[in-house]
């Protein structure tokens, strides 16, 4: 196990290519749109914080788990993965793994902490756009992963298939919302649907393969956690039947 930890640590240190991903940078959104997305995010974040407080108080071990998942999302969302088809780099969002382990509320809060740290420490994203970025990645990413888990609840698919689909969908949903946010703010005189379709088409060459990569990563990590410590999977916090993640 020590070797694995060392391997992971070494690879991270050896991968210092600066990353730019889905985050909407400071200055891109006009103030009224930045405030609008902040308002929506603040309400959802308030609810998620209440949920995560109960989640963490229930079991001391979950505090360590929350730290682990937050660090994992921070790390995974900093890794630039080259997408050969597009010739660009992008990064996974990691929140689907958070939903499997922390539940929706935990994943939303973890995602927000990650984006806040990246804005303050790396100038990755921005403060005015933090609301929009949080809504896209942490909120919609987590909710879409949760929705997939719900939909696949009664299917006979093994865990890795469920995790793969939830990871891919979380990634694509994040970028769909980012495209919508950009379109609403920047469409100008163009019809919204035209600008939105153009933006989605521009996103697709990078994000379609990226979603599949994210699905593979999510399936790998979730399966590994479930094999080692299935009791850490929080089916009851997802308000699902026992055994949904098996």
């Amino acid at each position, binding site marked *: 196990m020590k070797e694995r930890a060392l391997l992971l640590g070494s690879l991270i240190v050896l991968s210092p*290519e*600066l990353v730019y991903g889905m985050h909407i940078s400071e200055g*891109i959104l006009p103030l009224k749109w930045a405030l609008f997305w902040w308002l929506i995010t603040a309400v959802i974040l308030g609810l998620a914080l209440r949920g995560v407080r109960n989640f963490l108080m229930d079991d001391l071990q979950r505090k360590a788990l929350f730290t*682990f998942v937050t660090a994992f999302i921070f*790390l995974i969302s900093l890794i630039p993965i080259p997408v050969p088809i597009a010739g660009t780099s*992008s990064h996974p969002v990691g929140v689907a793994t958070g939903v499997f382990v922390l539940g929706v509320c935990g994943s939303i809060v973890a995602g927000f902490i990650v984006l806040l740290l990246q804005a303050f420490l*790396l*100038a990755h994203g921005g403060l005015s756009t933090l609301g929009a970025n949080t809504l896209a990645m942490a909120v919609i990413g987590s909710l879409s992963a949760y929705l997939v888990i719900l939909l696949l609840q009664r299917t006979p698919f093994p865990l890795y298939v469920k995790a793969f689909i939830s990871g891919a969908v979380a990634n694509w949903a994040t970028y769909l919302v980012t495209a919508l946010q950009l379109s609403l703010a*920047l469409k100008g005189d163009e019809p919204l649907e035209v600008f939105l379709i153009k933006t989605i088409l521009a996103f697709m060459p990078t994000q379609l393969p990226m979603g599949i990569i994210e699905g593979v*990563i999510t399936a790998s990590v979730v399966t590994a956690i479930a094999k080692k410590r299935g009791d850490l999977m929080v089916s009851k916090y997802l308000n699902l039947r026992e055994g949904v993640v098996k």
Partner: protein
Amino acid sequence: MVLLALFLFLGSPFSKTEEKWKGFDEVVIGKIAEEKGREPKGLFQLEGDSELFVFTILSGIAGFIVGYYWRKLLSENKDASYSEKRNFFSSTGS
């Protein structure tokens, strides 16, 4: 774990050797914004290699935390009972 490590490993050299592997937000989001007259700007500027330094340090710290808790939660504690786990984390202050 192996797949994750493989992706991490592949990410670095590819991006370094090929200039074309620019970030998605720079190539796509930035371009869309600039066409509409919105200039992306960072909260602050990390000059020269200081950006690389900060990125490497933060990635290293995050990697250490992930590795540490992976071992604590998923390996060392694998067969511990619920009460043992509670005692373990209480005693370590986590």
